[in-house]
């Protein structure tokens, strides 16, 4: 039933797209018909695959590094009152800066390679992961903490054995959000300056009025993002279901 809905939505979208092209007679370098995009995609599959690999690597590494940094920050904030007092305002302030504005600086510092794109993805997902996990760590059911106190638990063991496991569902939400944001970060990085990746391919195609190739790259990026989200979604939910069933 779920798949049926997805298929139906795709068919309707393609139908609408084709109808707009046929009815308005819009020129193909403005809006190419779906069949042409599919053909272009197939003819350029090696090229598209190569650039997809680059973008996927940037997103994957960005997610990994962002998750590690976010988890470490949330743990530090949860464990230390001093860190909460000092680091949190800095975090909130940096969050007020539009991350997009940092892209040119990152490119300047880290160059045109993958580094600046990974950094961009990390910057964009770091805060959602940190804040989701931190919120979870601070919202431990008070009864669990009472239990730990009467049992004579140390602060660290309470953190490790109770607060962290109780916060894993929140971390899961943070990671799912990150899976949505990470591709945006990588592509913005590619737009600002790069020599490979789907974002680069889109700019290149656009510059040469190859709108059909641009659409092919765009749709590939969409599929990549959806596959990434579904994977992270499935992994986190499957893990949580095994880890703390019934929550």
């Amino acid at each position, binding site marked *: 039933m779920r798949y049926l809905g997805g298929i139906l939505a795709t068919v309707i979208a393609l139908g609408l797209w084709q109808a707009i092209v046929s009815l308005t007679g819009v020129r193909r370098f403005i809006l190419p018909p779906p069949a042409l995009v599919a053909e272009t995609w197939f003819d350029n599959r090696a090229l598209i695959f190569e650039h997809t690999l680059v973008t996927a690597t940037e997103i994957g590494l960005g997610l990994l590094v962002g998750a590690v940094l976010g988890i470490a920050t949330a743990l530090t904030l949860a464990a230390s009152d001093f860190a909460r007092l000092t680091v949190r305002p800095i975090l909130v302030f940096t969050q007020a800066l539009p991350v997009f504005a940092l892209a040119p600086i990152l490119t300047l510092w880290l160059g045109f390679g993958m580094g600046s794109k990974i950094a961009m993805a990390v910057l964009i997902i770091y805060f959602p992961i940190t804040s989701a996990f931190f919120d979870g760590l601070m919202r431990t059911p008070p009864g669990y903490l009472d239990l730990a106190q009467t049992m004579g638990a140390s602060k660290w063991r309470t953190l490790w054995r109770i607060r962290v496991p109780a916060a894993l569902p929140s971390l899961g939400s943070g990671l799912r959000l990150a899976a949505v944001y990470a591709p945006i970060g990588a592509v913005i990085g590619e737009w600002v300056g790069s020599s490979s990746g789907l974002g680069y391919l889109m700019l290149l195609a656009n510059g040469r009025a190859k709108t059909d190739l641009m659409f092919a790259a765009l749709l590939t990026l969409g599929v990549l993002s959806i596959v990434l989200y579904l994977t992270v979604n499935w992994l986190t939910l499957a893990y949580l279901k095994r880890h703390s*069933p019934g*929550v």
Partner: protein
Amino acid sequence: MTAAPGIRFSGRASVDGVAVFDRLELVLEPGGWTCLLGVSGVGKTTILRLIAGLPTGAAFEGAIAANDGAGLGARVAYMAQSDLLLPWATVEENVTLGARLRGEAPDHARARRLVADVGLDAHAAKKPNALSGGQRQRVALARTLMEDRPVILLDEPFSALDARTRAEMQELAFRLLDGRTVLLVTHDPGEAARLADKIVVMTETGAEEVATPPGSAPRAMSDPAFHAAQAALFARLGAA
């Protein structure tokens, strides 16, 4: 387990300057069951949490002391109204939680014995969501016993159970907590009449001891004296 101490609780508690209870005197006999009754909001949970050394919303002035002069902190186990089982841990892991939280090696043999005592040996490897409400409460009881503390504080531990499971749990707890100083908060006059060595009814102006039915606990529910005591206690609560 070390010898169970008697406990004397006296004092007043207030929230924002308004007294919750005033000049309250409560004495727990060593090794006996004291049942504490009283209308909702009169401060029963507050007393339990104060004895357990847990934070409360109220400001307390008074004294809480054991009759042997030693501190209470590490001698108290507290079983709250909800079972507080960790959903990510199995029954056995929940029962051994205390040791793991203290960085000690859990005594698995003893944990398994207690799990068997509460009739859950077939469920030791399950997680709490695979258990019924009564079974979960039995795990919480096993976890409380595993701590092996001489003072046991029970906050309406059986109130969520059906009548039959409740009666079973009462007997089980009574048997397994033998020799400990127990303070049981309950809304159920029948529970108090059945289990108590001492019944205390709490009101805003203090605590008053009420006579227990004859015979030693746990009293048979078929006994007419039990019914008379239950009815009297019910009337007493209505008047409070």
